[in-house]
């Protein structure tokens, strides 16, 4: 450890006596406890991944991607309907959230500079960013499930969109602010109106950052469970394209199956958990790779 910091080299025996033992003990304790904290963090992540891989591979079966979830007590089955449902729900979520989030972020960064309203919206967006997702589930339940009288994939998609919007707003605004003002001025000097400058100059300059925000939002909503419990719920039947009634999805399937007494359900839950976690970790890593050239500039 000492080698990393040239300013605190190991003292020679003669000088060591000048450092009070109390100071040395405090310093040693800090270094060791910081190292232990980091190791604990890494061990927990490793243990989670190990658990997922061991149990998930045990849960893999040839019918996993071809059959829908089995009913209580019946053998075999797969999670094909849950995978498809999750894809549809997250797609609805991200398709709804992207235009809203990018436009709102654009307003905050381009039009709302210095305005009080923009300050308030920016602040509340930050609050919404870490709001409990279960409250968003309750909101969409009241807004959509109650009036429509049934759980639906649309409600699930909207709930996911509400979670994704603040993430996209935040990254879009941050990335647009990194674009130098001279680019905008150059565009305006050519006679382009503000909307033209934004769409073909600033957005283009910030595109990789905005895409990163969308990928991060995707990673965030792909594993969300709580809001889906009250909106999309789940069902065991094959996917139906009108999205009314419950729509099977991976997170709720994992929740219900992991706590069930049937071994084949538990196996499917583990397989689903492995699938969803690898997808999300891959998305997070991709998002970091996309943002890299942006930071280097």
């Amino acid at each position, binding site marked *: 450890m000492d080698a990393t910091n040239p300013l605190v080299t190991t003292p020679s025996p003669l000088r060591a006596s000048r450092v009070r033992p109390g100071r040395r003990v405090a310093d040693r304790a800090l*270094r060791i406890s910081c190292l232990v904290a980091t190791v604990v963090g890494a061990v927990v992540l490793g243990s989670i991944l190990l658990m997922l891989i061991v149990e998930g591979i045990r849960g893999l079966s040839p019918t996993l991607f071809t059959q829908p979830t089995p009913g209580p007590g019946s053998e075999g089955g797969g999670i094909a309907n849950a995978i498809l449902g999750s894809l549809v729900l997250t797609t609805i979520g991200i398709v709804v959230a992207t235009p809203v989030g990018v436009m709102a972020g654009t307003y905050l960064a381009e039009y709302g500079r210095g305005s009080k309203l923009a300050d308030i919206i920016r602040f509340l967006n930050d609050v919404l960013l870490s709001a409990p997702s279960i409250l968003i589930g309750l909101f969409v339940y009241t807004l959509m499930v109650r009036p429509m009288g049934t759980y639906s994939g649309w409600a699930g998609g909207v709930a996911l969109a509400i979670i994704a919007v603040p993430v996209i707003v935040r990254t879009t605004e941050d990335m647009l602010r990194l674009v130098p003002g001279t680019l905008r001025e150059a565009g305006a000097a050519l006679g382009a109106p503000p909307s033209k400058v934004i769409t073909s100059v600033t957005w283009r300059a910030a595109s990789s950052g905005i895409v990163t925000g969308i990928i991060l939002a995707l990673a965030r909503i792909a594993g*969300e469970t709580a809001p889906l419990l009250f909106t999309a719920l789940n069902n065991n039947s094959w996917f139906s394209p009108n999205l009314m009634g419950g729509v099977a999805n991976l997170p709720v399937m994992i929740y219900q199956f992991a706590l069930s007494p049937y071994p084949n359900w538990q196996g499917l839950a583990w397989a689903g958990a492995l699938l*969803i976690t690898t997808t999300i*970790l891959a998305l997070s890593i991709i998002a970091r790779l996309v943002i890299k050239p942006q930071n280097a500039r």
Partner: protein
Amino acid sequence: MPALSQSIAIAETRSTPRRGPSRGLDAVFRTCSYAAALLVLLVLAGILGSILYGGWPVFREFGFGFLTSSAWNIGTEQYGALVAVIGTLASAVIALLIGVPVSLGIAIFLTQLCPGWARKPVAMTIELLAAVPSIIYGMWGLFIFAPIFARFVQIPLSNLVEGLPVVGTLLYARVPSGVGIFTAGIILAIMIVPFIASIARDMLDQIPTVLRESAYGIGCTTWEVVRHVLVPQAAVSIIGAIMLGLGRALGETMAVTFVVGNANRLSASIFDPSSTIASRIANEFNEADGLQLNALMALGCILFVITFIVLIVARLLTRRVRAA
């Protein structure tokens, strides 16, 4: 900016005919972005409005007694929030007590002690912990952590403290199954560590190197540099980061639902199963009807108030520093 608008104004007077359709488009674009930004406000208002509307019958029926009653009886339609509120606060406090030292340790390790080559991978590992969905933490907590915890901590500890005053009630597990408020607190701690650690790391990185080097120059040890130079500099924003973690711990649902035990019981022992607001809503909402549904919505209101106060304070603390 004035120069920009002037130049546009001049351009407009010269070529008015060509500018017509484009200006209309411009206004539409501007209005769209304005509307999208307002939507963020509307959503927040909608969340508050919908749970207030849903919880109103319960607030009207039980009044302030809803907060102080520990009843949760579906048969007699008696509902009180006390157990869930205490469970929420207790698990969040345990999470902070465990999570804050660990995350500060990680932040200090990453900024002060870690050799350069290891910095990026270690930071990435910690950040990936934040991306793992909460339901996975729940499964890990229930299937991996709880059995180990019951066997190596709860059972020996229960045997040790049985019959003793105070600690005997506080640490005695009637059913040493590994699930309970304390386990929920530990899982929450693991979940908030990446958030607090990454914000704290950013704040420590922002402190000018000169300050650090001059402290080392007069012979300070690493501990003294951290204690007397870095912590005072970053204190406000670190408190903001901790509040942010607290907000997350209060509202976390799925992981807690797995490990908290879901009992409506007021117990003095931190090892006994209980519930939090979020776990109760997640557990009962789909089968709830009538007044029970309203009671769950009312619990949601309480959660909204608690978390939003915490989050607003957190954002104010972290923002003030960024502006300075």
